[in-house]
């Protein structure tokens, strides 16, 4: 495959060029809270060795709140104004493999029975520059869900830090190829030996559980009390769903409504919220936290795989790291695996 080299100085110049051309350059913020678009090449942060940010960059592809149309009621006329997403390229720099795969995984559901133009437009306009990850803590489990710290799938371009000043670059997709071509002057030819050496040094953690076994167990154990342990302490906030790079449930509401005008908004929603499945009749099929937690696990490890042959999880561990009551999704999956093995 094609490999190139870039040094830190050229990377900075590249970012400046991108900013001058009015593209969005998005990287993790210094405090590892979330991702933000920078306005200065000096603010670039490539977090390959640190903890994943609390919140993923999902909000740039699937905004936490977005208007899908506006309406105006005039005397003779009813006007529906659609607001298409801006035609602005977004370049994500420094996405670990667990982040980089998020767009691909989510695009399956957004192109299923309905092609969601909001998602697709943004996904089309995105270029993901991934980076090989050298961080690992007790919450990470990318290898258990088919990824690894050096997985290139999901990135358009994959960076491998050779040392403080230099990155090797692997071109993964055609989009990546186009991008490199446009900014050719910043890259030099690659040295596959050096990048291979760095990759070999990266520790690939052992798998914690087998997703197929987990899926099978869930299929046959819907009423199992295993989910009660998490359900008894889960407080029903939306942290896990909102921090997750692939959770995508949304709520449609109307806002700013008077007789003459209003707008329809698409907002993030979470299956852990108590009212997520509340019907207007007052009936709530998932009326306790155990049922809601079961839904989360089942959706991620079974239902999504049934439909799209993808696990709806990248093993980044954000949900577990940020859970106010310490519910660790990898541990739950491990327990399920254990249960499946004992059966």
């Amino acid at each position, binding site marked *: 495959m094609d490999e190139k080299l870039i040094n830190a100085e050229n990377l900075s110049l590249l970012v400046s060029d991108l900013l001058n051309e009015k593209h969005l350059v998005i990287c993790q913020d210094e*405090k590892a*809270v*979330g991702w933000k678009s920078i306005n200065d090449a000096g603010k670039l942060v490539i977090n390959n060795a640190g903890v994943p940010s*609390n*919140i993923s960059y999902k*909000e740039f592809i699937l905004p*936490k*709140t977005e208007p899908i149309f506006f309406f105006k009621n005039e005397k003779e006329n009813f006007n529906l104004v659609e607001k298409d997403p801006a035609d602005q390229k977004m370049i994500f720099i420094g996405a670990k493999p667990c982040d980089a795969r998020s767009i691909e995984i989510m695009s399956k559901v957004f192109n299923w029975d309905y092609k969601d133009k909001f998602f697709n437009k943004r996904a089309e306009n995105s270029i993901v520059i991934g980076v090989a990850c050298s961080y690992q803590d*007790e919450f990470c489990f990318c290898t258990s869900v088919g990824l690894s710290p050096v997985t290139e799938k999901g990135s358009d371009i994959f960076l491998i830090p050779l040392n403080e000043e230099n990155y090797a670059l692997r071109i993964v997709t055609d989009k990546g190829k186009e991008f490199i071509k446009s900014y050719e002057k910043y890259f030099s030819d690659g040295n596959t030996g050096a990048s291979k050496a760095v990759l070999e040094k990266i520790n690939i953690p052992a798998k914690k559980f087998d997703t197929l076994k987990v899926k099978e167990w869930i299929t046959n154990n819907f009423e199992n009390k295993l989910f009660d342990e998490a359900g*008894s*302490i889960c*407080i*029903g*906030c*939306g*942290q896990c*769903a*909102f*921090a997750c790079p692939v959770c995508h449930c949304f*709520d449609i*509401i109307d*806002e700013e409504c008077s007789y003459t005008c209003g707008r329809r*908004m698409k*907002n*993030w929603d*979470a299956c852990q*919220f108590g*009212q997520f499945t509340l019907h207007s009749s007052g009936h709530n099929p998932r009326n306790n936290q155990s049922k809601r937690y079961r839904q989360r696990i089942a959706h991620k490890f079974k239902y999504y795989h049934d439909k799209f042959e993808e696990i709806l999880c990248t093993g980044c561990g954000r949900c577990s790291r*940020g859970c*106010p*009551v*310490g*519910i*660790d999704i990898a541990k739950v999956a491990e327990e399920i695996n254990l249960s499946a093995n004992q059966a």
Partner: protein
Amino acid sequence: MNELREKAKDLLQSGTVKVIIGYTGTSDPYRTKPFIARTAEDADKLVFNNYCVNNLAVYLTRKEYKQNGIVGIVAKGCDVKAIIQLIQENQINKDDIYIIGINCNAQVQELGKEFGSETIATKCLNCFVRTPRLQHTLIGTINELPKREDVHLEKLKKLESMTSEERWEFWEKEFERCVKCYACRQVCPLCFCDRCIADKSIPQWIESSAHKRGNFSWNIIRAFHLSGRCIGCNECERACPSDIPLSLLNRKMGMFARKEFDYAAGMSLDAPTLVGSYNTNDRQDFIK
């Protein structure tokens, strides 16, 4: 720890309590998580150390613990303040709970880091409820605490010295990051409303969208609903994935309630609540 486990075992086996809400260890020595002990075997899993940050009183208002037998709860001073406030507001009955009070030697600000003078929680620095004010049994001994600067107080003073414009800018930047996950609300023992005003959609008083206006509305109203009720456990700030300094808002209102009305939340079982009562001599110099 053994004292706690023995006591818990005894309470469960004798049928004095139906369940005990406590903490249990995890594979990380610097982390614990909430745990519901139902049997003597479970009781052996209970722990208490410097990593028991959760305010377990948040579970007491759950439906499954109401009128279902006495609920035991392992509680440190700040948690007991929440329990007292809940009793004061008639949300739980004193006779329905059994408080296993702990003489607390402070908690960490952030789980996963070893306890020490750098990592001790800011709220613990000036704690005056090391021994909980209400308990049915007391476990543990008080030791001296490491010291460090009260960073929150410093930030508060800085904010108070800013102009109105600067403060707005500060909070605008903070609230912009809010994603409306409601972790702050869910983790708070005093946000116990069956249906939060933010969830009311006809009419929609607080916009559920996570845009600036909706975020301002939510955070301001939540801070107001907690004025005079927040007991300062800072769980909201810890739970927030966007690192919004919620403790500043709540602490400011707590300090103001003390200064203006000589009222502190979670101190007295039968005192009237701050906003639920009034004094004919309340200040009115701002009213024309």
